[in-house]
């Protein structure tokens, strides 16, 4: 063959070699994910753009909607449904933002590969990115909700537990990895079993009620669990320690005086900072392992996507 003129074209002798084969090692998969992070960001921004396309207030809605929720809860729990817990709305919202992030990411990611089959069959990219982009969009809404909560706390003059604040990024990272792992695995399973989508809706509802979001763990179910020795069982749910950490950071008080009876109420477990730190770091380690396992499972399942989509 003639030597082609290589004007404008670099020599590829030194370029790294990419390998396409049936099995990719976990290391390669992670490297690919990191290499294609730009795509992840584009997918997240385009998801959000599409969501607010044509609405006059745009992304402001994502701020307005949690703000209105917060205002409603504030009104409802301090006027109509008095449960005796002072500032219950802060307690509720601290847990709710954690739950919202998990729930919205998992339920949107579950069907994402099936929904974007056209893309999966035509364009080459690490398929996990589709699920991760849904998680990413949830992270953005999560951050917005945290900002709304912070503004609300400033308005009502309620300071968070500053000394615990450093746990927030650790707990969030654990939450992110946990959510991402479940989202990635569910997105792949749904390709083979389409029912999983509907099943997941039910599972998430149940999961919500076994997590201490709308009720106080320490006040309503901890004594009952302790008597039966089921505390460990309750803590199998990895969402529980994360939610408790957020509540500890934002609600601050472990024991409060009831606004109705005047008696002391135990709202949150009276763990020391060390306990919270150990629990969160342990959870983070678990979440990292879980995420790697999720990537391996996804890798095994993605090989046959094309015959199912």
């Amino acid at each position, binding site marked *: 063959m003639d*030597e082609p003129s*290589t004007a404008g074209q670099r020599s590829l002798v030194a370029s790294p070699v990419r390998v396409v084969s049936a099995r990719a090692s976990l290391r390669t998969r992670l490297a690919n994910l990191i290499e294609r992070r730009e795509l992840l960001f584009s997918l997240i921004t385009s998801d959000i753009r599409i969501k607010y396309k044509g609405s006059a207030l745009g992304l402001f809605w994502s701020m307005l909607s949690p703000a209105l929720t917060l205002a409603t809860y504030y009104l409802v729990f301090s006027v109509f449904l008095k449960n005796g817990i002072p500032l219950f709305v802060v307690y509720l919202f601290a847990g709710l933002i954690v739950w919202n992030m998990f729930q919205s990411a998992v339920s949107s990611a579950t069907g994402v590969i099936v929904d974007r089959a056209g893309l999966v069959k035509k364009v080459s990219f690490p398929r996990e990115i589709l699920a991760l982009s849904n998680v990413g969009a949830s992270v953005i809404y999560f951050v917005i909700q945290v900002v709304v909560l912070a503004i609300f706390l400033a308005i009502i003059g309620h300071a968070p537990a500053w000394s615990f604040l450093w746990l927030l990024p650790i707990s969030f990272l654990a939450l992110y990895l946990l959510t991402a792992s479940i989202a990635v695995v569910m997105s792949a399973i749904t390709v083979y079993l389409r029912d999983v989508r509907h099943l997941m809706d039910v599972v998430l509802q149940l999961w919500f009620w076994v997590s201490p979001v709308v009720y106080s763990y320490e006040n309503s179910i901890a004594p009952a669990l302790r008597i039966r020795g089921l505390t460990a069982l309750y803590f199998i749910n990895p969402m529980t320690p994360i939610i408790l950490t957020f509540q500890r950071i934002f609600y601050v008080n472990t024991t409060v005086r009831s606004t109705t009876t005047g008696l002391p109420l135990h709202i949150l477990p009276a763990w020391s900072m060390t306990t919270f730190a150990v629990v969160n770091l342990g959870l983070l380690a678990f979440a990292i392992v879980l995420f790697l396992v999720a990537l391996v499972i996804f890798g095994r399942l993605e*090989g046959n996507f*094309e015959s199912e989509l």
Partner: protein
Amino acid sequence: MTNVIEVEDISKRFTIHHERNQTLKERILHPRSGSSEIFDALSDINFTVEQGETLGIVGHNGSGKSTLLKCICGVLKPTTGQIRLRGNLAALLELGAGFQHELSGRDNVYLYGSMLGFTRKMVDAIFDEVVAFSELEHFIDTPVKFYSSGMYVRLAFAVAVNVNPDILVVDEVLAVGDERFQAKCIDRIRHFQREGRTILLVTHQADTVRAICDRAIVLDHGNMIADGPVTDALRIFRGRLLGDVTDHRPGGAGVVTIDGLTAPSGSFEVRHGGNLHFDATLTCDHAVSGNLVIEVFTRTGLLVSRNDAEAAPVSLRPGVNKIGVDLADVPLLDGVYDINVGLVEPQGATMLAWREKAASLQVLYDGRSSGVVAIESSVTQW
């Protein structure tokens, strides 16, 4: 030269579900029901592509050429074997597959760019070129759901060719857009070739391969049956296509063969502007009628002329038939040309017989013009 694509023992096996059991209920109630079939789309494909080469992949429908291309792009994972790639790759498998209908053309350029694996910064740098190439300056901020299909494809093509990939993979997409845009695409591909980029082109149009590629591989039912210079590969491709036709002919109809071409004067020599008569000898075992097709190619593989088959109906008797062919006022310039002869059914669809390079035509020309044909030109100075 550097090998930019190395395909090693690639096989791809599909499981085809005839009855899909995708709901949980069906899977539990009928765990084994629903027949499935194993289909080998590719078996043990091996080849390498050097930097700067333009490789054509040809094959009939279902030969596995698109599967192979998807494996190279990484859309499909091969069942066994591996593909090693150097440099970045842009694939035009289905134009605009990654577009989001709700987003504007501008947003989609960035999104599509990132799907092809290019960073925002890289897309920024070429954005104006993309818009200019696609000729969508006035519509770039319109959501693509309002685009016509032509505009859609133009935008996608513009992104893929302007990101300047090291390897460009094209799957039968040149047939889109109007003729002017097609010419522009071909032009861009030639420009890529001059720059020494590597191109992979899948098509079943022999002319496109002949016009663009340096080399071609032929796939047949998942096997690679040829790898070599374009003309040789296309001859094998045609031969296989014809083989398929004879294999599947209904009603046990017989075989027609083209034995050869003979010129009464003994040579296929003709002067520029002169006439040439030759005879084609065809043998058949039953009466058959069809149309004779004559193709003339340059030695570089350019199609000079293919006569309209409908203009030359012939009826053949069982046995040996001789058919006279007259080429009148041959407009070719000095050189040697190849003649291909074929017989197709009167309806034009099925090829009954084909013979590549049945004869070499030598054209003698005394004038000073060079090229393939003479175009009378005169210059007037006003």
